[in-house]
């Protein structure tokens, strides 16, 4: 079982790697007003994805992933006292790691746990849950809070990362994030080309 082989050490590397990646300069060319308007349109598409529960529920500030869906009156804290983990790994605590329930693939039973090889909570600095469009936008552009990525790399990450891709293939009974990885990748590229404006 590969999912079970994911170690805390490799998770920690992801976090450390994020910290030491080189910061990127902002787009040097000042964008035109038309570009900004177009860019903001693209951003709306991107924001619809990032703020969607399939993504935002695991990009949280308070160490608790969220549950949402038609069976819950409102979005709620993930049951069972599931947490980021005292070690900051994003993979839970001793005795109750993510991979106790979340395996390589989505469970086929209704309300069963979704799965992915890389299942874990997003790093604490990447907070989307409960944040405004403006806040998420600023964060995406800040290498300190986006995993040390250039915006190109952000687009690539959205395009290629398996766990990000899960958002569009979340298993039975869950609403997928809008669009697709491809569409979101293209939207980010267009947004960047338009000067990556924030609302």
């Amino acid at each position, binding site marked *: 079982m590969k999912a*079970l082989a994911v170690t805390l050490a490799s998770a920690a590397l992801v976090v450390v790697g994020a910290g030491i990646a080189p910061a990127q300069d902002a787009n040097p060319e000042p964008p035109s007003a038309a570009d900004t308007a177009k860019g903001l349109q693209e951003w709306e598409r991107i924001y619809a994805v990032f703020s969607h529960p399939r993504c935002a529920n695991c990009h949280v500030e308070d160490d608790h992933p969220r549950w949402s869906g038609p069976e819950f009156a409102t979005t709620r804290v993930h049951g069972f*006292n599931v*947490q980021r983990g005292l070690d900051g790994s994003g993979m839970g605590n001793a*005795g*109750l790691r993510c*991979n*106790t329930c979340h*395996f390589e*693939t989505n469970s086929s039973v209704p309300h069963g746990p979704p799965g992915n090889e890389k299942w874990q909570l997003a790093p604490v600095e990447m907070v989307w849950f409960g944040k405004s469009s403006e806040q998420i936008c600023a964060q995406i552009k800040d290498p300190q809070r986006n995993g040390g990525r250039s915006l190109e790399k952000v687009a690539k990450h959205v395009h290629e990362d398996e766990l990000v891709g899960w958002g569009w293939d979340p298993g039975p009974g869950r609403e997928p994030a809008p669009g697709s990885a491809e569409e979101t990748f293209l939207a980010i590229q267009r947004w960047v080309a338009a000067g990556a404006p924030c609302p």
Partner: protein
Amino acid sequence: MRLTVNGKAIDIDADPEMPLLWALRDIAGILGPKFGCGIAACGACTVHVGGVPVRSCVLPVGDVEDNVLTIDGLAQDGRLHPVQQAWLEEQVAQCGYCQAGQIMTAVALLDEISDPTDEDIDNAMGGNLCRCGTYPRIRAAIKRAASLKAGA
């Protein structure tokens, strides 16, 4: 499929999508792990795969690539595991149905943290539901197991 369960190799003739729980219970006749919810929401089916506690009711048997340990294989050479011994001494179980899962999770917790705090216990055991409300005694038994292990 060939699985190693509690140190013994067993052949399982089953749909690889069948959850490990049902392969163990209905095909291998290993009845320690219990069926409670089928969606990884109660912990009664908890077993270890490669030392990691997992909810066997949602893990496809075809994805199991490592040794399986169930409550049935926890006692060694006729001696209870310290966690089982502590459970006995604290008289934890009431109906007992969830306790196989509780014990397997507690074993995993103590394997990582030898002297867990109340917070560690809260963080580890939240996925294991007990409808009889044995939680205060579970807490006491985990602490007793920690001292039994330390003294062993």
